[in-house]
């Protein structure tokens, strides 16, 4: 049923309900906006609602923020932008390729191969650490390389035990998002520091944080893109195969353009996640590559409840995402597939 089919009083009731809901959702944003223009006196002096009527707007908070009195604002903004964009683009791109492979090709492997990987990875680390006396970082690297190699080699043989397929792989990816991120963040921090001792600086570095975000975004990207690719008509790709178009050109020249709305939606979701991410940024950065959520949260802890300054910082964190969503939503329109089939 559409609102348009309602008549008379019920129609006004529906409209009124929608307006109330709109007000509820918009009020916090409005409140943040006007607070960022209030003077400290106006904030603590009780609630005021209308600029120029209730209170005299002031640019104090904004000038303090932009002049750098409140931490390395420009630096943080730049770090957030660079990391956000590059991590989302890389995650969407890599995840799309993985999702396409999972949709169009059949993978089969034995559960035993996966268990071999886990056993060698953990066991190898412990052996390297306590028996052979290697450092943590070196043990980790050796153990993982050995585990991966052995798992791949073992999958060549007909091992006993249950067989796993594409759906199990997808579940494995998605399951990584089921445990609390703090588990991964803490482990990642330890791993990064160990790598740092070996000479690869990962904590508070562009590479470190971006890698972490790509890894943590991939499950969602693969899961979303798999649905988009599954909806594509396979005949279009088959037509290209018969026409002797190489696989990589089918993917880049035909599949990706056809799934543009999906790619953009996935990119937006990933970007929103990376842009707002707090926990990893808190653990893995300290000054140079600090991101906006850390800065905004830091406002409160460093200087106390200076709501005018926090509001200005929060708005700066929101606006780029709104602009991005506005620009990209035009490209997200459906109907791109029209004319391919039927």
């Amino acid at each position, binding site marked *: 049923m559409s609102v348009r089919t309602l008549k008379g009083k019920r129609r006004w009731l529906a409209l009124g309900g929608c307006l109330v809901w709109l007000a509820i959702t918009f009020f916090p944003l409005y409140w943040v906006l006007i607070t960022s223009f209030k003077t400290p006196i106006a904030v603590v002096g009780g609630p005021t609602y209308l600029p120029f009527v209730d209170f005299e707007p002031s640019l104090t908070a904004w000038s303090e923020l932009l002049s750098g009195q409140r931490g390395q604002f420009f630096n943080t903004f730049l770090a957030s932008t660079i990391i956000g964009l590059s991590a989302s683009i890389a995650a969407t791109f890599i995840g799309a390729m993985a999702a396409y492979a999972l949709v169009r090709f059949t993978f089969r492997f034995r559960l035993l191969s996966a268990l071999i990987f886990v056993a060698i990875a953990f066991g190898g680390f412990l052996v390297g650490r306590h028996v052979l006396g290697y450092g943590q970082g070196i043990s980790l690297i050796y153990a993982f390389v050995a585990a991966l190699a052995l798992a791949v080699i073992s999958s060549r043989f007909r091992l006993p035990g249950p067989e796993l397929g594409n759906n199990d792989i997808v579940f494995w990816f998605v399951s990584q998002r089921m445990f609390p991120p703090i588990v991964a963040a803490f482990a990642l921090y330890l791993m990064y520091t160990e790598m740092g001792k070996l000479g690869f600086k990962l904590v508070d570095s562009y590479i470190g944080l971006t890698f972490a975000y790509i890894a943590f975004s991939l499950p969602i990207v693969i899961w979303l893109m798999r649905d988009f690719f599954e909806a594509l008509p396979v005949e279009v790709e*088959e037509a290209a195969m*018969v*026409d002797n*178009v*190489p696989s990589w050109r089918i993917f880049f020249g035909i599949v990706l353009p056809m799934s543009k709305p999906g790619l953009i939606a996935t990119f937006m979701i990933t970007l929103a996640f990376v842009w707002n991410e707090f926990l990893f940024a808190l653990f893995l950065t300290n000054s140079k590559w600090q991101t906006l959520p850390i800065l905004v949260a830091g406002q409160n802890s460093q200087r106390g409840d200076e709501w005018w300054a926090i509001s200005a910082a929060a708005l700066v964190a929101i606006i780029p995402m709104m602009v991005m969503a506005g620009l990209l939503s035009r490209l997200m329109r459906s109907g791109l*597939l029209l004319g*391919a089939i*039927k």
Partner: protein
Amino acid sequence: MSQVRLEQITKSFGNVTVIPPLELHIADREFVVLVGPSGCGKTTTLRMIAGLETATSGSIRIGERDVTDLRPGLRNCSMVFQNYALYPHMTVAENIGYGMKVRGTPKAEVDKAVTDAARILNLGAYLGRKPSALSGGQRQRVAIGRAIVRQPDVFLFDEPLSNLDAKLRIEMRTEIKLLHRRLQTTAVYVTHDQVEAMTMADRVVVMNQGRIEQAADPITLYEAPANLFVAAFIGAPSMNFIEGRLEGGDGGLQFKGDGDVAIKVPENRAGKLGAFAGKEVVLGIRPEHTMAADAGAPTVKLTVRDVEPLGPHTLALGKVGQAAFTAQVHAASRIGPDDQIEVPIEAAKIHFFLKETGKAIGR
């Protein structure tokens, strides 16, 4: 020379065998139609020729080449799909020329091929449009254009007209036939529509459960179906069947069937059919052969249940004994439901099949 030879081809999906060993030779420049009910393996066979499915065993040769293990792109086939399968983000010209462009053909050559194809298919005015701005018939023409520029050894059509409306389907049928005559390229065409098969093919291959029931030119299929399946599948409305037995006697060989049917077997066929006296057989007669004018033709008693006036003639649907029976009667005849009418049968057009095996007998 681009004949296609399927030699002892089989296809299984897991434990399910879709195609038992299948042998099919298609001559150079021949237009072969694979026809059969859904699930009979015709599309799987076509996809194996294209390389989109791999044969479980056996070999496929196109021309002199063994292509059994070649990937689709290297087989030099062109395929037209039921749902067109156009590239939605490219214009008509880009759709047609994409394959050539990817293979590194010089631009001038691609343009020329696209223009030629567009001229043949009357697409000249639409070259700059996207597929979404075309009608169904135009889209299928673009798909055919894409197939032509490949200059393939074999054209493969997978029910290309099934998504079009009835009128357009008849037009496109003729267009594809003319195109084949013009290009003289071997073509394999899959359809479930027996009219399409009959009207287009040099040779029709009737398939059922992965087996070839009969492969012959359309007229042979119609006049001399090899078994009950082909007899029932080819022709619309389909052939009537009456079960009964052949009995020898003083008056010569007679067919005695359910519903007091007694038909004397014509002298010229009695010789060959004599061997089957006493056997359970099925008599087949097409509705269009129930209007015999000559007096003394054998008749069956039809209880009419429905009447379908078609204009040139009228169909009387009903039962002879327990068997469903459709008779073609003169348009002028005044019959209605629940009437009992005597339907004459053209003795020369009667088919006999052995009930046990379904094979045609007495030919």
